[in-house]
């Protein structure tokens, strides 16, 4: 079997990818929870987070070679910058492409079309302003590929994998607390359960929807920076494939279900990377598509089920 060798060697990077998918998938799932719509432009929120982190970190690092504690700071600053830019773009997106349509009770088809239009607008704008080649973020930590941080069953765990895992786990826990234990989370859950009733109970729906986009944008933008730290770098088309895969992850876990999105992201990342030695790098992107179709065929509600109302 293609999996017997280096199982952990493929499992670990898969897990790192999975954390990124989970962060992006949460953006889809949160918006789906409150609007029952796929936000096609979420991949561009992710992309703009990548650019935000890129510019801030490259500017701060300059010619330095950070190490030790300063590396940690650069990573944190990059994540924050990516998250803030992602949130701003998500907020503008909601204002421009969603709110005017919602006010008019436009059909769902119109929302999907305006979102896909916004997606193409944003990615072309990034391509126009920042050039169409891929750019790399200056490494905030010294990476020596031959010497990993530590090994796990013979599988090297790089600093990059560790950074993604730690940052993602911290953000996932924060999100879980926000949704379950704050007033904002209560609002999100109330709107997801029944928007009309929530508005009768005094919830400002427009405000909650905007906040939901912002929360999703924070996570997506941070994921954009973390993705950009990797070998692929940052480019104007970087959002498409991870966006599609994160959507698959959200459906796999059960769309509208927050823990489902986390689980789906991790599962998809691992499955995809484990399929790498079997099918080769050219075919990896096909795997997630078949998983999407398979889930829709066999269990369209996902592993944990759609729990739009009690979304946590």
């Amino acid at each position: 079997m293609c999996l017997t060798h280096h199982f952990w060697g493929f499992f670990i990077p898969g897990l790192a990818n999975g954390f990124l998918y989970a962060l992006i998938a949460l953006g889809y799932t949160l918006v789906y929870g409150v609007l029952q719509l796929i936000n096609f432009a979420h991949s561009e929120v992710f992309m703009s987070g990548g650019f935000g982190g890129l510019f801030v970190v490259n500017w701060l690092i300059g010619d330095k070679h950070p190490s030790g504690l300063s590396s940690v700071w650069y990573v944190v600053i990059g994540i924050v910058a990516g998250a803030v830019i992602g949130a701003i773009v998500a907020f503008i997106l909601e204002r421009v492409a969603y709110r005017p349509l919602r006010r008019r009770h436009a059909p769902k088809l119109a929302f999907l079309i305006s979102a896909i239009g916004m997606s193409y607008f944003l990615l072309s704008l990034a391509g126009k302003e920042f050039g169409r080649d891929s750019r790399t973020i200056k490494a905030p930590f010294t990476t020596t590929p031959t010497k990993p941080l530590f090994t796990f069953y013979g599988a090297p765990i790089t600093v990059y994998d560790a950074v993604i895992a730690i940052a993602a786990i911290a953000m996932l826990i924060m999100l879980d607390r926000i949704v379950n234990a704050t007033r904002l989370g209560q609002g999100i859950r109330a709107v997801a359960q029944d928007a009309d009733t929530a508005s009768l109970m005094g919830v400002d729906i427009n405000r909650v929807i905007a906040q939901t986009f912002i929360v999703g944008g924070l996570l997506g933008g941070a994921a954009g920076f973390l993705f950009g730290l990797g070998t692929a770098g940052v480019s104007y088309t970087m959002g498409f494939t991870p966006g599609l895969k994160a959507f698959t992850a959200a459906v796999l876990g059960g769309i509208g279900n927050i823990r489902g999105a986390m689980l789906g992201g991790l599962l998809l990342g691992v499955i995809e990377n484990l399929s790498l030695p079997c099918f080769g790098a050219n075919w990896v992107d096909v795997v997630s598509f078949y998983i999407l179709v398979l889930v829709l065929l066999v269990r369209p509600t996902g592993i944990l089920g759609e729990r739009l109302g009690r979304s946590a």
Partner: protein
Amino acid sequence: MTTTATPEKSRVTQARAFVADDRVRKLGGCLLAALVVALMTGPSGSLTSPTHGFRASLLSGRVVVFLVLGVALWGAIVGRDAIAPEVARASAVLRRFNVLRDSRSRYPAYAALLALAIVVPHLLSNFWQEVVVDQIGVYVLLAVGLNVVVGFAGLLDLGYIAFYAIGAYSSAYWTGSLPIKPPHHFNPFVSIIFAVLAAMVAGVILGAPTLRLRGDYLAIVTLGFGEIITIYANNLTSVTGGAQGPPKPVPHFSIDLFGIHYKWRLENLPYYYLLLVFVVVILVMFRCLENSRVGRAWTAIREDEVAAEASGVNTYKYKLMAFAIGASTSGFAGVLFASKIQAITPLSFLLQQSILVLVLVIFGGMGSLPGAVLGAAVIQWLPNGLRTYIKKEDLFLYLGALLVVMMIYRPQGVFPSRRRSRELAMAEAGMTTADAMSAPTAGEIQ
């Protein structure tokens, strides 16, 4: 009477009231829109100087022009009531010229349009003839097909070009251009049958599991499918020829029947007339379909899926039918494309082509056949007409913005179908859905 408000406080409330004023908000919106347009049309930045584009378009003199235009737009919006009688008079005059609305003048008008379509290409230069065939003719066919899916059935297909690719590659296979050889080599005319069948089968395979679910799942599955098809075309080198495309050029159309011998060549006009015949035939077919039982079923599904289901309409079957018809039209267009340009590569079938076709349909008007044709003609003509101003790589900046603007201000399109615009108005009043995005009630899993 106690006036507790200090001067500062009242200034704050004044400022708040000022910002909350509808006219001020509209001015802000217009100015922001003007800045965005200034940025869109301005110089580009680059890898080395990412802020250059912003600085050159927003901090230079040209921004003033756009701001003035923004203020003018605001003036037109705010003063709408003042100019309303003039607008009404102008639109009444225009309506008198809208001969397609009147059933008596409709057929002479169509005949005149057809005569125009026959004569005009003769007067064009070679460049424009090529534009008319490669970019307008083929895309009219694509737009008319997607119009069945998006306009008639109210579904969103974002991987429409995948079926075009399937059609093109099927044609390449049956004419013997691919590395794998067919049992018998056919003329491209015959390959149309196989290509349309292949595209239809692909459409059914893709649509059958997905159409049982909510409509937006179809959008994302087709989006993924569009991407997968190019991966297959790229990677299956032994079947498709890989990134370079088929090793042998796809042959041109030719007739060799009953003593008539004719071969289409590189010239544009013969292909133009071939396309024109096909487009007219397909338009007539779709017009009949629209007014048939099937077309009425689609209307019922769009307007209220639950009620349609309750009245005995098999919504799943009709949605699948619309999706398959769209897919086969796309496959058909793929054959024409492959035979015209002869050398196809996976790069001819990118996702953005699907978005382009969607723009054509949305701009022309969902559910309107004349809209799809005119939309395709206008949108495909513009980038070539304005090619000195609009860079090719910035095209999708404008198309994306156009989609958003159309959805906000004119979802029924520029040449709307009367029924579709009424439905959209009704949807906004909360009476219908105007799309087929809800899950069918008879689906397997809820």
